[in-house]
């Protein structure tokens, strides 16, 4: 069998030198670059771990040392080993305690009488890997927690049945002005104005009935200071402790809505102006042009001068007419778009 070429540094806490030698030999059969540090008693082990606990990939711990043994020994060593896996070595008589040591923080236990190169190597690799997985899992858990906690948008988690708020992120605290503790004593109804309670109940029901993907709704939420804001809610269904819960992403669109309303108002005014232009302004102009037509068709003999003046009035009104038509045409485009 090809040897494992990766370097390993192990700490063996073992008062019996013979056992230490056997262990080192067995492992050397599988590992090319093995460094084994030997601690003969608890005191020495503690010193080594406190000096540089990071040095070791794994700790083998004999359960009976001259200066400490049993439960207390396992506790003290695993505490100091921190992230490093501790594999307990136990005699046949202590078999039962071996399994108990797992609950005390040990990663694994081996029966001394059953030791073989293969068993030792497997245990070493397995326990180092396991610790890596656990720390990766912790990292990813933290990453997800950060996604929630540090998300710039407020996120509320609530119990579907009671509507009680189960969790909020930092952005919610900032946005609403309630502390986390206050939030956890509130339910969704407390975030709505009293008159919107029925809307809330039916909105929650509707969301849970439909398998609401892309469900987005706008509603009014109350801040702690009584200020109302328009929010867009994007809820999702999750399970918390096996219970149905809703996770709602809140987007404060108060300012956006204000802005849109302002534009809508301006647009309305604009439409009115367009209407006035097209209907009202042109009416007296049409009348004026009609009068000119009438004068032109008059049988009375007009002086050349007056004919010229009529001609000028006609030209001016036609010019004004062209301008009004131009404006009407432009505003019509907007009419049709909206």
């Amino acid at each position, binding site marked *: 069998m090809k040897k494992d070429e990766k370097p390993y540094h192990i700490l063996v806490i073992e008062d019996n030198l013979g056992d230490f030698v056997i262990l080192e030999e067995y492992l050397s059969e599988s590992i090319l670059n093995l460094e084994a540090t030997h601690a003969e008693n608890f005191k020495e082990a503690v010193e080594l771990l406190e000096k540089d606990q990071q040095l070791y990939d794994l700790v083998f711990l004999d359960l009976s040392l001259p200066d400490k043994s049993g439960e207390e020994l396992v506790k003290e060593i695993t505490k100091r080993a921190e992230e490093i896996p501790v594999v307990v070595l136990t005699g046949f008589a202590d078999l039962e305690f071996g399994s108990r040591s797992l609950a005390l923080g040990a990663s694994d236990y081996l029966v001394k009488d059953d030791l073989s190169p293969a068993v030792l190597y497997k245990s070493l690799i397995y326990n180092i890997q396991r610790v890596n997985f656990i720390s990766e899992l912790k990292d990813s858990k933290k990453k997800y927690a950060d996604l929630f906690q540090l998300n710039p948008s407020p996120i509320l988690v609530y119990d579907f049945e009671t509507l009680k708020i189960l969790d909020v992120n930092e952005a919610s605290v900032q946005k609403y002005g309630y502390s986390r503790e206050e939030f956890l004593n509130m339910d969704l109804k407390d975030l709505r104005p009293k008159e919107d309670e029925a809307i809330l109940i039916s909105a929650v029901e509707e969301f849970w009935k439909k398998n609401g993907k892309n469900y987005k709704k706008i509603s009014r939420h109350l801040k702690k200071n009584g200020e109302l804001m328009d929010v867009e809610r994007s809820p999702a269904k999750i399970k918390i402790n096996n219970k149905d819960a809703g996770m709602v992403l809140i987007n404060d669109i108060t300012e956006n809505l204000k802005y849109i309303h302002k534009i809508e108002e301006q647009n309305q005014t604009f439409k009115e102006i367009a209407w006035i232009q097209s209907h009202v302004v042109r009416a007296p102009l*049409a*009348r*004026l042009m*009609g*009068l000119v037509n009438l004068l032109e068709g008059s049988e009375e003999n007009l002086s050349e001068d007056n004919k010229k003046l009529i001609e000028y009035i006609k030209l001016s009104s036609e010019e004004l007419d062209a301008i*009004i038509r131009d404006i009407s045409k432009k505003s019509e485009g907007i009419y049709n778009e909206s």
Partner: protein
Amino acid sequence: MNKELIIIDDDDILLVILEKMFGKINPNLKISTFIKGSDALTFLKNSEFNHPPALLVDLHLKDLKDWDFLDKLETDDRFRSKVFIITSSVNSENPSKSKRYKNVAGFFEKPLTFDVIQRINQLIVESNPN
């Protein structure tokens, strides 16, 4: 028999202008003018005509806005008058909408020139009873 024309427009100055212009083109045309659409409808209802008079109606009457006047006219079978619509608005949708009404014989933008008045007069004079 002399043909009749009823002009309905809430602009009283325009009524004077149109009356004068039609009078110039066809002195035999019998012209009545109304400022209110409702008054014109009442007049139509309560009068006996040998031949239904032609109507020249402004589209934007103050009392019967937009197409209300035409809608009211359409619902009454006795009014088989030819209707000419006039408007000072330059909204381009209007002419196509007027085609929905079978009474409508023409759609004109103000101001009406003598040419237009001449054309309308022609249509009135040529129209047969019924």
